[in-house]
């Protein structure tokens, strides 16, 4: 596989795997699960050739804890999985957030709850953004919408994880993982991060270090949590990213994350042809969430329609962000066939009649 500027037709899963290699991922630990198994398959062939580590772990719990161990030594490491198996990893994510360890986790979402099935869905927004682990912690969550972005955001995930010593989730879905598009790997655009001040590399010639999350000293534990959240304020200030299309004159802003962005863009064009002033807004970082920008748009009187493949998980964040200054509607289907352009257009027209403050649910 290439790391130059040649365009290749490649699956999202393979793109993530090769991008991880280009980003300097030294160790991969994982356990197979559809629809992301190609990532592990690819790395099982490529990592040994490069003298890097590949372990097919005995379980997802083992895999993520292996990542925790590896990254604590300052190397870049990753695990990848899907929805129900990411659920198993939540304890380790809480530990990694508290320990300030640069864990990179890729979740290629499939349908839930429970065992669900292998078709794509977006039901892990809450799991990723709000976490299933214990205590107060925050994860950086990046949501690609194209195969090219699977590459770009994998590079970014490794960089942000080390830069802020914070776990990062790349939140893709079965559609992105399985589809092929032309994409370029280019070069990893991010600089090396100096980890020498904290990495556990053996205490020869220096003071010994320890990384742990045990907090028996109440005062220190209080301060620790405050510090984690102060760090995340800096992340929110510097790293919040989003994309906007034709919002300037828009009266209604279609909002989606991940691969659903593709369909709201197409729906926007159809609505514009019908004379409806529609725009698009898409958070790239789901956490930190672009609350500020959404509030600005709401203050200009723009109404929002959130389109997502779940029961309205991001919808709540948009609703929270507008602070009551404009209306927020929802178009959704919990799992399965991606909401089509036609369905979105039809639902938007229905929502307009209800002044946007409603939800249209497809089955």
């Amino acid at each position, binding site marked *: 596989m290439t790391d130059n500027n040649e*365009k290749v*037709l490649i699956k999202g899963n393979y793109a993530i795997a090769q991008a991880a290699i280009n980003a300097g991922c030294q160790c991969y630990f994982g356990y197979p699960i*559809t*629809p992301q198994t190609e990532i592990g398959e690819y790395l099982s062939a490529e990592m040994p050739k490069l003298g890097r580590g590949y372990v097919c772990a005995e379980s997802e719990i083992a895999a993520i804890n292996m990542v925790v161990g590896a990254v604590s030594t300052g190397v870049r490491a990753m695990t990848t999985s899907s929805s129900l198996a990411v659920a198993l990893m939540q304890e380790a994510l809480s530990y990694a957030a508290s320990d300030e360890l640069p864990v990179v986790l890729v979740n290629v979402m499939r349908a839930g709850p429970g065992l669900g099935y*292998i*078709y794509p869905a977006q039901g892990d927004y809450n799991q990723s953004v709000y976490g299933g682990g214990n205590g107060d912690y925050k994860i950086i969550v990046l949501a690609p919408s194209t195969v090219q972005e699977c590459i770009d955001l994998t590079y970014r995930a490794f960089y942000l994880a080390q830069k802020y010593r914070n776990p990062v989730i790349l939140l893709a879905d*079965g*559609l992105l993982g*399985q*589809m*092929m*598009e*032309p994409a370029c790997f280019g070069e990893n655009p991010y600089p090396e991060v100096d980890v020498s001040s904290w990495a556990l590399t053996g205490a020869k010639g220096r003071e010994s270090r320890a990384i742990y999350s045990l907090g028996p000293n109440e005062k220190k534990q209080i301060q620790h949590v405050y510090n984690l959240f102060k760090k995340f304020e800096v992340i929110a200030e510097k790293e919040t990213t989003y994309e906007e299309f034709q919002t300037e004159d828009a009266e209604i802003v279609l909002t989606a994350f991940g691969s659903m962005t*593709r*369909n709201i*863009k*197409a729906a926007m064009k159809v609505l514009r042809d019908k004379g409806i002033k529609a725009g698009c807004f898409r958070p790239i970082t789901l956490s930190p969430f672009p609350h500020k920008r959404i509030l600005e748009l709401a203050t200009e009187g723009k109404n929002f329609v959130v389109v997502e493949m779940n029961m309205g998980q991001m919808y709540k964040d948009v609703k929270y962000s507008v602070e009551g200054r404009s209306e927020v509607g929802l178009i959704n289907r919990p799992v399965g*066939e*991606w909401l*089509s*352009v*036609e369905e979105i257009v039809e639902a938007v027209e229905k929502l307009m009649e209800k002044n946007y403050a409603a939800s249209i649910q497809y089955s």
Partner: protein
Amino acid sequence: METNFILAGFGGQGILLAGTILANSFMLEGKNVTWYPCYGAEMRGGTVNCEIVVSDSEVSSVHKQDTDYALVLNQQSFDKFVHRVKPGGTIVSNSTLVAEARPRTDIKYVFAPMTQIANELGNSKVANMAALGVLASVCSVVSKEYLAKGFEKVMSGKKKELLPLNIKALESGYNILAQAK
């Protein structure tokens, strides 16, 4: 302009590979393209399909309900996808394995003996390339020359030896309808 394709057949007929070659041909032509497979609990002998969207501008949505072209290599796929062709669209069928029936009046039908072409060339595995040849002869968006380049791009290394036979299959498929006239 956006054009949609569904390729479908038995597992083992090289459907996903044909789709990959077709998608590569579009990429090499400088077009925007997306390839999406059915994925699920599939098995050898079961049906398999992939969807390809090609466009001059950004390809937004995939996983569409209907298609401009369906290329079907077996009966089950014909029965399933004949209903997913847009009015005015075309279903291109492998007449070696698909009965010549026309259940709808609002779409076009193309029948060509793709598996037979491959068998006559001595290798049933190249039926998928013959199929792409037939598709190129009835669909102006698909280029026979770029299909050949797409094949070269996809089949790297030792598999390059297979190029001459596959090009023959592509050509035979491309010419079959003109010959029949």
